[in-house]
């Protein structure tokens, strides 16, 4: 099959690329757009390391085709900070030791950002269920949940 021409917007930038019809969005982001922040942990949508936001929805980019990005707006971890100013969630993860090896961190940050846009004041249980699709093997999640709660409070101005 012929390759497909895709026009998309990634982290606010207009992007164009050509990919085979069966290439995943994750591979297109990493291989064609040089955005290696999203990671492949499983390739089957079970670990959340490749989480990005597509048209406002949290998706596992390993389960989305690159071709589906045509006309879509995508946010990856690379779009969270501005210059040398980190997003409050990013800063909170550093301040509260919410990462160890860091391979799951980009996916968790993107998912958490989307949660706080929908619900600025989630309960601990809501955060735990929202992030249930993002596996972390290092932290036991405890510090991640606390870091999200602290960032949420800061973003609410509490």
């Amino acid at each position: 099959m012929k390759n497909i021409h895709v026009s998309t917007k990634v982290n606010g930038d207009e992007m164009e690329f050509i990919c085979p019809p069966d290439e995943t969005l994750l591979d297109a982001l990493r291989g064609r757009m040089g955005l290696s922040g999203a990671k492949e942990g499983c390739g089957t949508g079970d670990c959340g390391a490749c989480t990005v936001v597509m048209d406002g929805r949290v998706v596992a980019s390993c389960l989305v085709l690159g071709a589906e990005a045509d006309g879509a707006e995508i946010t990856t971890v690379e779009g969270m900070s501005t210059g040398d100013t980190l997003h409050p969630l990013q800063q909170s993860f550093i301040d509260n030791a919410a990462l160890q090896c860091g391979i799951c961190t980009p996916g968790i940050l993107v998912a958490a950002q989307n949660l706080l846009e929908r619900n600025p004041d989630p309960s601990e249980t809501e955060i735990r269920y929202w992030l249930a699709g993002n596996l972390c093997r290092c932290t036991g999640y405890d510090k991640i949940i606390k870091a999200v709660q602290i960032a949420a409070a800061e973003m609410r101005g509490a």
Partner: protein
Amino acid sequence: MNFISKTKADFKVVGTRVPRPDGVDKVTGRAMYGADITVPGMLTGLVLRSPHAHATIDKIDASKALALPGVKAVVTCDDLGVPEDASLRDVQDNCLARGKVLYHGHAVAGIAAIDMATAKKALKLIEVSYTPLPHVTDVDAAMADGAPVVQEGRADESVPAGSHPNVTTMQEFGHGDLDAGFAKADKIISRSFKTAATHQGYIEPHACLASVGTDGKADLWCCTQGQYFVRELCAGIMGMATSQLRVTASEIGGGFGGKTTVFIEPVALALSRKTGRPVKIVMTREDVFRATGPTCSSSIDVKIGMTNEGRITAADAQLRYQGGAFPCETVSMGAQSAFAAYDLDAVRTQGWNVLTNRPKEAAYRAPGAPMAIFAVESVVDELCQELGLDPLKTRLLNAADAGTKSSYGPTFDQIGLKATLQAALEHDHYRAPLGENQGRGISCGFWFNFGGNTCVSLNLNFDGTVGITEGNPDIGGSRAAISMMAAEELGIPYEKVRTIVADTNSLGHNDVTDGSRVTFAVGLATIEAARAAIRVMCERAAKVWGIDPDAVVWEDGCAKPSGPNAGAFDPMSIEEIAASASDTGGPIAGHYEVNAEGAGVSFGVHIADLEVDPETGHTQVLRYTVFQDAGKAVHPDYVEGQMQGGAVQGIGWALNEEYIYGEDGRLENAGFLDYRVPVASDLPSIDTVILEIPNPGHPYGVRGVGETPIVPPLAALANAASRAIGARMTELPMSPPKLLAAIMAKG
């Protein structure tokens, strides 16, 4: 609580919660992990794996694959040398099978092509003729008469004559008269236990990029816990001189022991050598499950005698671990760990390693200990139930202490077990009320910890800041811990130190990042390297002042004359000394190289509250508290993180995680959907209590902390479940069907 110690006790930087130096890279996506590197001209490598649990390889025909446009090379074991060293040969035969495939997923051939699509297509065109053989995947079945033989002639001299050929080692530890000990007991309990193999479950699959030049010089980038060990293994397998292979460790996306050996690296090197181009291989998750890790599964018998007052009179255990298709010695560590928490007059542990048609076991956090201690702590708990004793007080009564001859031989130095048990006893978690269908379980845990070969280089820059080069991948926050100890010793701010991880050509040999060794051993070497630099800085100041170097001391980041007789000179700061280094003799550095000893053993105690649904067998962890001796917590956040992460891995092992094999010997759950690791919504907050009983073997009292936390959860949860349902759980994982069966069986 006061502890006698010669170690430093007043700290300015150590013990604070400074931001991690790799934090910004990791929260912005800038950090480079194994799969993140690309280079011009790079080929994509894939590995063909066995569909059989056990079979001879009769023929490999790659002609159709090689005829596909874009395919550049196929390699098999014939493309590698044949090392004389048996252990190296095992690593090699695991990377590319020789003559036989020994488990479902065993690598058979590697392929390199211009892109992934071509490589995938070509992989299907490699024709392999197999003759299937009988297989065995269960440890007890593999020891039984008539079991299929996985590999002939692999038993070492420790194995008694007449044992099944699948038994490769047999070890025994202990002391005292068992018969006399059991005769003194008021109650004796014997139980048998089984645990399933579990995977380390790091989120980052193995990945590497190999580039071999026509001059034979090679470079390898990979995610590993030990770039020096990778270099030795790969150079040996490739028949290269060690000096000609440079290995650079990427950021590592988790390892937990599972990235301490090689699986794909020699294949990538062989493909690169054959094609003359760089070759990158990234494992799929399915391949990670089928062909790396896991830990041993086990079958264990434990017999313990106790008096009515709770004193253990004798303890005996037989441990049978299957370590997969190649010999391994993990059972030895299980046998040594089993009764380490107790001060016993009569104790024996025997361990057998057994070959099966499963992937070779790889280290997993305190390898061998969790399952041994699960079995022992379950019997101790049952004895407490039967005799109406408090389980924490009973453990305190029997606890090992400084001066105790351990069950595995050495006499303990300063250890924190009693303090840890006492802290648990006094914690409000231990007294909190429980509801219906809920149980509280406790368990002790033990791990040896390790030091090992370590090199650190510390360089003073002309602006007074410091660069440190160390040789262990940063797997648990070690760059922060190393920078903190250097700043502490030099008396400068943490922000003035930058620690980087060296490639294999930039620093002398460093052992693998295992045994919870890095903060202990690299920290020790860093402190000594800083002291070496301080000596040079004091000499430079003495030179400027025209006084004897012995008359100069180092305080708060400055050289100072030591006393009135040395002369009245103003202190010379590290910045001033650095700025004038050129004029006083040249650049200033400190190095330290050591095979570090004195790691200091570690103990933890966990309390777990569990609710079991009597209708479904579903479990919910309600509350969990970890108590552990860190020696000195260099960065308390990271120590807590290790305690929490290890506990949750143990919770997964206890409740859900297992390798499931079909009758055909094939792994049935090679993915995160069916191999279920704990997710955020499965868990409560994991509370932590850090104790600090200094390790006399480290200048700051540091002990390893990374492995001990996975040891107690198996028994803590089994004890909690057993008390909740009123029946003893002896098999892990305690998945809902097993719990439901136990509930139904008791009527």
